[in-house]
């Protein structure tokens, strides 16, 4: 009797952690195929790539906790990246978007990006909280709107759309610079992600807003009876997500070194997968900041690792798809009644 229970428990354990086992194995395979993968440079590369995506995922995570989602995250990142980039082209570059623009303090384009992100966040929040649209629908709409705005903004007849590049050196430094600790170069981006993560952790765990978010996500009806202002709290969570997208957009353009209307495409899917892999449940009311970070980093590891050992790019899509399906299947298992 005891033995059968043990076996069952081990099976159960294996199933519940199968995602991490699979992901761990993939990383191990990458290392076996090419041991050079495990260099400090690769790891800091991975982490700095994970930073903008991590900020994006931290924004999306709150919406998933609210039983929602966000399909517009990537495109909002895109439009804010383009706008920041256009305001920060090097003054010595001849074909600048704004030839007469003086060198702006970095904070100006950053604030502009954040405001644009915030406006989109508020539109999404209004749709969900006030118009009672499903987050899927309203963010599908704003995704297209954000894309349209990017394309119009970047389009310069008669030349047509041009990638925005040649950035002000200060901007490039601010984003891609690093600090030397002993023999280790730590990119600023990692610090930016860490700061955002700490702030978000504080909001989620130590503020009224955070408790209300989990209440609304966990049981909206009970939250309403308990005196939680549903509309206001949903709006604020969406607003915060928009702010984070703006911030991520500002950093992403600098990190990549250029921005086009394709910047940010499909990033929301990576962000959503990171959340799901990190244990943020689509049934709402469940999730942690460390989980989101771990999810982001694991996925980035695999992304980078598969590239590193030269796995076919199309095959990578298939692998990513399978990871999402596996992650959600395991999550759902926890909530279906056991028989």
């Amino acid at each position, binding site marked *: 009797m005891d033995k059968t229970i043990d076996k069952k428990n081990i099976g159960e354990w294996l199933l519940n952690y199968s995602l991490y086992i699979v992901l761990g194995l993939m990383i191990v395979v990458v290392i076996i195929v090419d041991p050079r993968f495990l260099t400090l440079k690769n790891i800091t590369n991975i982490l700095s790539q994970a930073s903008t995506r991590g900020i994006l995922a931290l924004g999306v995570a709150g919406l998933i906790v609210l039983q929602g989602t966000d399909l517009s995250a990537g495109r909002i990142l895109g439009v804010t990246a383009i706008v920041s980039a256009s305001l920060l082209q090097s003054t010595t570059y001849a074909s600048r978007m704004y030839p007469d623009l003086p060198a702006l303090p970095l904070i100006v384009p950053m604030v502009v990006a954040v405001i644009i992100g915030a406006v989109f966040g508020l539109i999404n929040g209004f749709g969900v909280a006030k118009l009672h649209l499903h987050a899927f629908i309203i963010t599908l709409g704003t995704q297209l709107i954000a894309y349209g705005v990017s394309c119009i903004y970047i389009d310069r007849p008669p030349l047509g759309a041009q990638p925005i590049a040649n950035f002000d050196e200060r901007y490039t430094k601010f984003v891609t610079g690093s600090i030397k600790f002993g023999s280790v170069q730590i990119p600023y981006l990692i610090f930016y992600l860490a700061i955002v993560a700490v702030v978000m952790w504080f909001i989620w765990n*130590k503020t*009224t807003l955070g408790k209300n978010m989990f209440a609304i996500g*966990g049981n909206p009806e009970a939250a309403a*009876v*308990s*005196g*939680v202002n549903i509309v206001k709290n949903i709006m604020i969570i969406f607003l915060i997500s928009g702010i984070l997208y703006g911030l991520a957009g500002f950093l992403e353009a600098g990190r990549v070194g250029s921005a086009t209307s394709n910047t940010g495409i499909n990033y929301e899917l990576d962000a959503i997968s990171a959340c799901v892999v990190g244990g943020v449940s689509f049934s709402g*009311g*469940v999730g942690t900041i460390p989980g989101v970070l771990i999810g982001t980093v694991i996925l980035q590891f695999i992304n980078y690792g598969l590239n590193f050992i030269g796995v076919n790019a199309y095959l990578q899509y298939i692998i990513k798809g399978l990871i999402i399906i596996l992650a959600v299947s395991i999550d759902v298992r926890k909530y279906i009644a056991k*028989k």
Partner: protein
Amino acid sequence: MSDNKYLLEMIDICKQFPGVKALDNAQLKLRPGTVHALMGENGAGKSTLMKCLFGVYIEDGGEIFIEGKKVHFDNPRQALDNGVAMVHQELNQVLKRDIMDNIWLGRYPKNMGIVDQKTMFDETKKVFDELDIDVNPKMKIGRLSVSQRQMVEIAKAVSYNAKILVLDEPTSSLTQEEVEHLFKIINKLRDKGCGIIYISHKMEEILQISDEVTVMRDGKWVGTKPASELTTDKIIQMMVGRDLTNRFPPKTNKPGEVILEVKNLTATYQPSIQDVSLELKAGEILGVAGLVGSRRTELLETIFGIAHHSQGEIILHGKPVNNKDSRYAIKNGFALLTEERRATGIFGGMSIKFNSIIANLNHYAKAGVLNDKKMDGDTQWVIDSMNVKTPSAKTQIKSLSGGNQQKVIIGRWLLTDPEVLLLDEPTRGIDVGAKYEIYQLIIDLANKGKGVMVVSSEMPELLGICDRIAVMSNGRLAGVENTENLDQEKIMKLAAKYI
């Protein structure tokens, strides 16, 4: 053992859930042509036993015989094919489809691969006529009342030609007349030789309808007796395992001055309450009785402000208050314990701490930042003063029993320091022992000078703990009387006043 004596025998059924032995050698023997009541406190294993019979759960051990033949069902489909049908407490119906679609779901009659609507309609009509159910099979099921939907579910069971019919709490949302109708149907089926297993908490009903009674406790079989040998007290004694001489704690509260006046309250969205006026005193427990559909819940919700009113006033301490929504109500000193604990009360996946403090966050926050120490202190207060049995404050509330969950939610509301507590079915789904504790809590609250309104469908409970009882009938107030002047019959008469 002779083959035909029992229609169904369930012997030594065991079922283990993680951490709980839900069934421990449970048994049930059902004779043909009888109604067999299955009783026990919540969590005694009644529903689990029935789900094992119906193939929803797979039993770990034990044997099931139908007409002497050993059977085992892996899923409800097999049970249905073998003449076992079950009407669940929660109706699983596809509300947006019509009645006959629901009845034939999963076994649509087909003609060359195409669903045969005409046969569906005719067969449904036939069953409905047999059972005196007067609704059009082509209606959308979502437009029926809960009781009609219950009837449809029974008709569905009958349409399977079930020999064994399990009814799980079929009358919990029915009016007296509807219960009579249901009993007529049950009697018809009994006369046809069917065996009916009837799960209910309502003692009077059980004694009226059943032939035999099986009582379970803690997943074990306690006894089976002919209903004619039993009384309410004897059944309770079997269920609880001890003499329950005092079902209610002594009433020590003394009503004082009027604190709450409700004047001519009419809800905006009808059907709901109309022109209700009543008063509540400090230290008073005011019961609200009435049938399902008499709008008792709506009365509390309108006072609390989560349902809007078009006319009337709510006056607290002589001053009109405007409860625009729950936030205003809480600020004004009101608290509402909702009827559906799982749906609108608890945050199931969250800790006891979270569930304790969530209605009172403003008290812990400075500029939106929460003070953990204060929250932990208050959570501990809830656990201690409500006597919540839990391993820790971090335990998920859904892992507690119904009674302990309810205590946490009452504690949640006490933290907001309300003057008026509106309790909607505070003991629903709670076992007999824990009910006593809840009654004691309610009386303690009144002793502290709070005004308490208690909605309940259990009349003995209202008669046991309330100072006065207001009876609602069809959205209107049929009368408010001192409890000593009332009994169940008088309440029922008032409850039928406007129907």
